[in-house]
């Protein structure tokens, strides 16, 4: 296992960072949550952030936290799928295909919510008056996010990006054939 500073990885996969922050912003907009500050990309840690007020409903905080997971996974998968099928299924590759695969993997690998997202969600769930059913949904999500954060030290985020952008489309072909 080799170590590459997160800032370099973020720079090489910057489209994913931008899409990730736009996804947070988009869910804030959906739920009418005031956004106080946004950084779409920077050479720092974190590479981007969205500073917002507490949502009224705790469930909204869940959606704001996991929004990037949904948006980045779908967009990354769609962008890379045709190129991945062409390259890895029957080897009809051109430069555009490799560009699309890089873009798809970049976006999908930033799907994982960050430890900051998990902490925010945990704080929201520990507030008074949060319904039990919401906590039952939220706490496993928080656990998965923290595991994903730990996993990113062993490239789990990159593995996920490749799985969504490359393995998924090839598996889809195998299922449909």
């Amino acid at each position, binding site marked *: 296992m080799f170590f590459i500073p997160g800032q370099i990885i973020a720079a090489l996969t910057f*489209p994913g*960072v*931008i899409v*990730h*922050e*736009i996804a*947070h912003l988009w869910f*804030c*907009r959906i*739920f*009418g*949550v*005031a*956004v*106080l500050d*946004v950084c*779409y990309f920077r050479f720092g840690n974190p590479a*981007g*952030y*969205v*500073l*917002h*007020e*507490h*949502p*009224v409903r705790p469930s909204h*905080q869940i959606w704001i*936290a996991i929004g*990037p997971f949904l948006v980045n996974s779908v967009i990354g998968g*769609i*962008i*890379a*799928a*045709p*190129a991945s*099928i*062409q390259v890895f*299924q*029957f*080897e*009809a590759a*051109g430069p*555009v295909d490799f560009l*699309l695969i890089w*873009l*798809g993997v970049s976006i999908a690998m*930033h799907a994982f*919510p*960050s*430890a*900051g*997202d998990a902490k*925010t969600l945990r704080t*929201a769930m520990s507030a008074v008056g949060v319904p039990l059913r919401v906590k039952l949904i939220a706490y496993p999500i928080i656990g998965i996010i923290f595991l994903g954060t730990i996993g990113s030290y062993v490239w789990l985020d990159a593995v996920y990006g490749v799985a969504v952008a490359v393995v998924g*489309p*090839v598996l*889809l*072909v195998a299922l*449909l*054939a």
Partner: protein
Amino acid sequence: MESSPNNASVAADPSVCVSCGGRAEPDRSIALCAACRARLSSRALPVWIRLSAIVLFIPFLLAVSRFPSALAAGVAFERGQRAEAAGAFAVAVDEYTKVTQRFPSSTLAIARKGIAAFHAGQYQVAAEAFDAISGREASSDIVREVNAAIDQMKKLGR
């Protein structure tokens, strides 16, 4: 990358909007009136982000437009491989043909079509396929299979 609620208590009077001094909405973590909250929740994207979104939208559209063709070809290739493995070489030729019609640059699909055609006794189809990929780069396994088929066809006088 993260989203963080602001925990700071920014308003001395929670009923007064910290942005415009108007009447703040009740029971919110930050004292903002409805208009200011709406403005902040639907804040406009910066120009460079809009441009980035447009740049990102182009490959997205490209991918969406290419997806049906790539999926159909991928399915046909997979079916061709399965048919070949089952000894149904004529079926495999038909499936590989679907791929090569869509993606004539696929050396692998053309090679597999030629090999399947050889085994199906379609020597003319096989010869055309092998001619089409002559001089192209391919994996050593495919080259070996193609050369073996060509040798066999020469022995058979085809």
